[in-house]
């Protein structure tokens, strides 16, 4: 079933594609600049932005007809963050290395 914006999803797709390539270039260049402790957050932030664009527009989550799709995505992310977060909490609070 075609989605609502029959007018031109093509413009959107090419726009997202160009944005993704642009941000790939940006993240590559940003890694060569010394941002101190911010290199990692910037890199991960850009990656998250790219991933979000792919999910929302290439995987059609933005226009998903059902909330269930979004719920599945959010749940997966929630449990992933749980795994990462609670495990890191142990490592971050150990007084020994």
């Amino acid at each position, binding site marked *: 079933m075609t989605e609502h914006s029959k007018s031109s999803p093509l413009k959107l797709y090419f726009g997202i594609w160009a944005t993704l390539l642009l941000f790939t270039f940006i993240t590559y260049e940003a890694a060569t600049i010394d941002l101190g402790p911010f290199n990692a957050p910037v890199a991960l932030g850009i990656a998250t932005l790219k991933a979000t664009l792919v999910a929302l527009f290439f995987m059609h989550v933005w226009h998903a007809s059902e909330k269930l799709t979004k719920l599945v995505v959010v749940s997966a992310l929630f449990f992933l963050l749980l795994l990462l977060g609670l495990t890191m*909490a142990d490592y971050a*609070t150990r007084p020994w290395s």
Partner: protein
Amino acid sequence: MQIAIPQTAERENYLNKEYGIWSWLLTTDHKRIALLYLVSITFFFFIGGFFALLIRLELLTPAGDLVQADTYNKLFTMHGMVMVFFFLIPSIPATLGNFLVPMMIGAKDLAFPRINLLSWYLYIIGGALMLHCILTGGVDTGWTFYAPFSTNFTNTKIVEAGIAIFIAGFSSILTGLNFVVTIHRMRAPGMTWSRLPLFIWAHYATSIIQLLGTPVIAITIVLVAAERALHLGIFDPKLGGDPLLFQHLFWFYSHPAVYIMILPSMGVITEIIACFSRKRIFGYHFVAFSSIAIAVFGFLVWAHHMFVAGISVYSALVFSFLSYAVALPSAIKVFNWTATLYKGSIHYDAPMLYAFGFLGLFTIGGLTGLFLAALGINVHVTDTYFVVAHFHYIMVGGAVMGYLGGMHFWWPKISGKLYPEGWARLAALIVFIGFNLTFFPQFVLGYMGMPRRYYDYSHMPEFQVLNVLSTAGSTVLGIGYLLPMAYFLWSMRYGKPASDNPWNAAGLEWKTASPPPTFNFDQEPVVTWEAYNYEELDTPPKPQEVPVGR
């Protein structure tokens, strides 16, 4: 209370529709797949039980005189691996779940019948590999295969066992996937979420855990295999790795796994208690949401298996607190079951006997979990028989009792035959007595300090009395398990034919024939009533009024 009817001509049903081995091995009928699973998991139950028997025989005497230490390590490892991965995890979902989920929601089959069959084949392949591993030497690391022993030091076949579990894990994931999609997409008209049997809610919650937890143990197994093969250093302290990372990844799955084992059983118990009290479950929505809560909270507590392993104190505090929180939804269920019984019209058929057993034993098992969640106590009873008793109370006293209760309850639907009620009640009693005799002494042993996974306790000969009691109990328990196998098989040939609804139970599965036709219903059901409408079922229909003067 069972109603038998004489049958002359046999109606076409899922059992007699086609004959021949290939009609079974290539079936996509969820009911036949459920029976394929039933046979397979029973086989593995025997294997796991055999190892248990040898363990208990060794522990009859303080000296390690039946087997050598290495052999004993293999015995408890194989007992654990087989029972956890090849019996308990699939048990109710793959048998009763597969059989009943489509029927209870009014569907013709699961959403993906071919994936269902694939899941059974994956289970068989994993099982065959595990069997081969056992027969060629087995594994001796404990079912928890902790690094660095499993990665660096043991000479046993970890990788093979790991691959077997990996493959079986896929089977579990596919089952969960099928259930989630089926429950969302295949409900009959009028079957809203609030009208679903709580068995369905329980399986939905179970499926969430299977889907989100199993992949983590899958990757853990991959890392262990890679480490073993290439000495990578991910878990090896000498190379900069952290053995605790293994434990974090392992328990992230293996704790929620225990909820995979208990939630379906809770679903069964809910159905049985409602039926044999002739009452709607008290607090339907509380029970439904408590299943989801258990699934979610269950992912928050894994490090309570690691309190003494070296995690940070702060992390231990957090996990201890969360472990108390996870008990709340389970407690809510126990209260609601009890409230359902109150002023109910109680019938003591075999399924209900198992349900009563579950209520008591699960409560004990659950409460002892809280003892273990307390950091102070945990230090003393970790790796003792207290832990062993705790988890057997839940997994055997809880999960297996629920499984047996469910097998009895739905046996007429599955087979079209009635099992002999007298024998069934006797067996339930024997199981209950045997179980308590086996495992209650283990609480005492653990509290007194007997370590687990020891084949020789001759430095503590005072433990022998309780060990002998435990072994005696295990023999009784074994008899209790053999009896249902015997009379279920007997009933398939000689049992009285069952009516559509011998228990006069609520639920769509009871509105079709016993055994059901291949596509479950002659006509797609349209649901206009609430779940557990026992008042309606028990009210005799009003006599038809005859108009005067016609």
